[in-house]
């Protein structure tokens, strides 16, 4: 069996976050080197703050400043920092209960090695040189043997508060299309379209998925379809899609290749867009170096009768 294809798939997006009043105050505070928590109905101070009381479910808006010094409540050593983590050299992930807070904040501790870290050790915030109103305004924590710092009692009111942040996310996958699609893709390189027939319902799937979605059985019998086919339905695209270098208007069509039991999608060319119709007979046009047909063009045959493709709509 030929080797199954694999390729990296990177999914990344700059998500935006509206902060709401409490997170806005918290992050703006970090920008100003002030750490704010919230006071709950039962008198506890939560850092990082939350908008709603975890016990009573009531709104909490009573902001209270805590100290930039605190105590490690637990930790784990990170031997190999990865992209985007707070420090590039090995460090400890720590939960720090800041002086004046009743809960702990997760962050990084810069320490020479795991032997230098212990639960109960005293630490303080190392502020980032450039601060924008983000959790990374705390560059990390560092060991500290001085006195407990006294918070100044900030009210949580700021000029020019941060109201939103960008939370860039990135996920790295290794993607494999699996056995059936690998065979389909390999056949495309010889400009042939090869689907698979379900042993139970006899339907031919293009592209094949390796199993019939209605019968739930594996498929393996390969069937070459096309190259000609019938336009079953279509739309005329009048707006330019991002990252797509196609002049509008163009026709995006569902095409049932001869011998296939469901339609695939492609662009129709070689005919004015407003002359494309359901039932038009088409064939693929390949270009050098591309995996899929660039588009499909009319074959010149008479249109297919509606009854021959209406089940494929």
């Amino acid at each position: 069996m030929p080797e199954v294809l694999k390729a990296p798939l990177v999914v990344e997006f700059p998500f935006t976050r509206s902060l709401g009043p409490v997170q806005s105050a918290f992050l703006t505070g970090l920008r100003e080197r002030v750490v704010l928590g919230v006071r709950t109905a039962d008198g506890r101070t939560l850092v990082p703050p939350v908008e709603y009381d975890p016990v009573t479910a009531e709104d909490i808006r009573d902001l209270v400043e805590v100290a930039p010094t605190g105590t490690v409540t637990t930790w784990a050593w990170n031997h190999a920092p990865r992209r985007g983590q707070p420090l590039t050299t090995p460090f400890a992930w720590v939960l720090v209960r800041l002086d004046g807070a009743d809960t702990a904040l997760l962050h990084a501790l810069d320490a020479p090695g795991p032997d230098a870290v212990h639960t109960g050790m005293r630490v303080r915030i190392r502020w980032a040189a450039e601060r924008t109103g983000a959790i990374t305004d705390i560059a990390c924590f560092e060991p500290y043997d001085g006195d407990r710092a006294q918070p100044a009692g900030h009210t949580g009111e700021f000029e020019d508060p941060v109201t939103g942040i960008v939370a860039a996310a990135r996920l790295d996958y290794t993607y494999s299309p699996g056995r059936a699609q690998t065979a389909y893709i390999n056949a495309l390189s010889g400009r042939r379209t090869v689907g698979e027939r379900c042993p139970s319902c006899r339907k031919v799937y293009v592209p094949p998925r390796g199993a019939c979605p209605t019968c739930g059985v594996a498929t393996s019998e390969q069937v070459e379809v096309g190259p000609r086919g019938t336009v079953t339905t279509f739309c005329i695209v009048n707006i330019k899609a991002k990252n797509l270098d196609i002049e509008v208007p163009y026709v995006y069509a569902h095409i049932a290749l001869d011998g296939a039991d469901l339609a695939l999608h492609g662009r129709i060319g070689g005919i004015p867009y407003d002359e494309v119709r359901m039932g038009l007979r088409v064939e693929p046009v390949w270009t050098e170096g591309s995996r899929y047909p660039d588009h499909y063009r009319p074959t010149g045959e008479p249109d297919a009768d509606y009854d021959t493709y209406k089940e494929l709509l």
Partner: protein
Amino acid sequence: MSKEPVAVVGIGQTKHVAARRDVSIAGLVREAARRALDDAELTWADIDAVVIGKAPDFFEGVMMPELYLADALGAVGKPMLRVHTAGSVGGSTALVAANLVAARVHGTVLTLAFEKQSESNAMWGLSLPIPFQQPLLAGAGGFFAPHIRAYMRRSGAPETVGALVAYKDRRNALKNPYAHLHEHDITLDKVMASPMLWDPIRYSETCPSSDGACAMVLTDRAGAARAPRPPAWMLGGAMRSEPTLFAGKDFVSPQAGQDCAADVYRQAGITDPRREIDGAEIYVPFSWYEPMWLENLGFAGEGEGWKLTEAGVTELDGDLPVNMSGGVLSTNPIGASGMIRFAEAALQVRGQAGEHQVDGARRVLGHAYGGGSQFFSMWLVGAEPPDS
């Protein structure tokens, strides 16, 4: 033992808008939940469980947001469930909550669905660049437009029907203070003159992208007896699914949709939906889906749905009003859109729909679908409990 009757005693929505930059996701869901509790005159302590739904996590990029939303929804120390069924999720979420009451697992359940589309881009989330695959060639409407053309071919519907739906729904939205789009100067000519984006879909025949949340309080007979306002009673509810693509799939009238509606009608004892149902909130993301779904749901015979639209039957003052609230065409926080349909159906039979109230609505259908016509969820609610 028979099922416990399920009543809707509280409904809350946010004012749906393009971007709620003043609140976090927690603040957004909180607002809808708070309004539902206020409507029911209940407190957080009266809620036994929370069932939450939203569309795929990629739409905001918060993985499993329900974990962080437990505080905002008063769910600490209570069961909290998340439901995932793409665009139909608002409906399925309500049904999961309803089933917890019907099965007497819980007495009173808060159910909520939301989307904060402004935090990301749903189209991006739905079209990740998968290696080896041909990139999507047509954009958001390109998926739907060919199916609409297939419907037009099959039914012989005149080209104007889509515009009629959009014109109706946008006018209905003007009577709904929570609707996103309030186009005060809308005219049929303006809809017809809007750009043809994915022929046959015009710009004005597409749904907006919204931030919003919708919540309901569902309860048992005892809870309904204590309710300050008339409850809506669930008379039937069902979900069905089928693959997005398979040989023989009918995108114009999917089998799963037909089966789902038939199940709801059987539970509710409905034999002639067109006569026995007083209105419907149907998930119509592109205008032509109104006539398509009218057929799929059994309100019209095959190829006849557009005739109801064209004759004005689905207008607010018609005899089968559809999307009295303005529908998905006027408001689309994707994950919440299905629950808004369910909640608006309940508002109608409670007589609480305000300016878009249908006089004397006794039985109204709420419908949701999603995932490329993969998932369907529906309920029928009535002004009277199911036994009487």
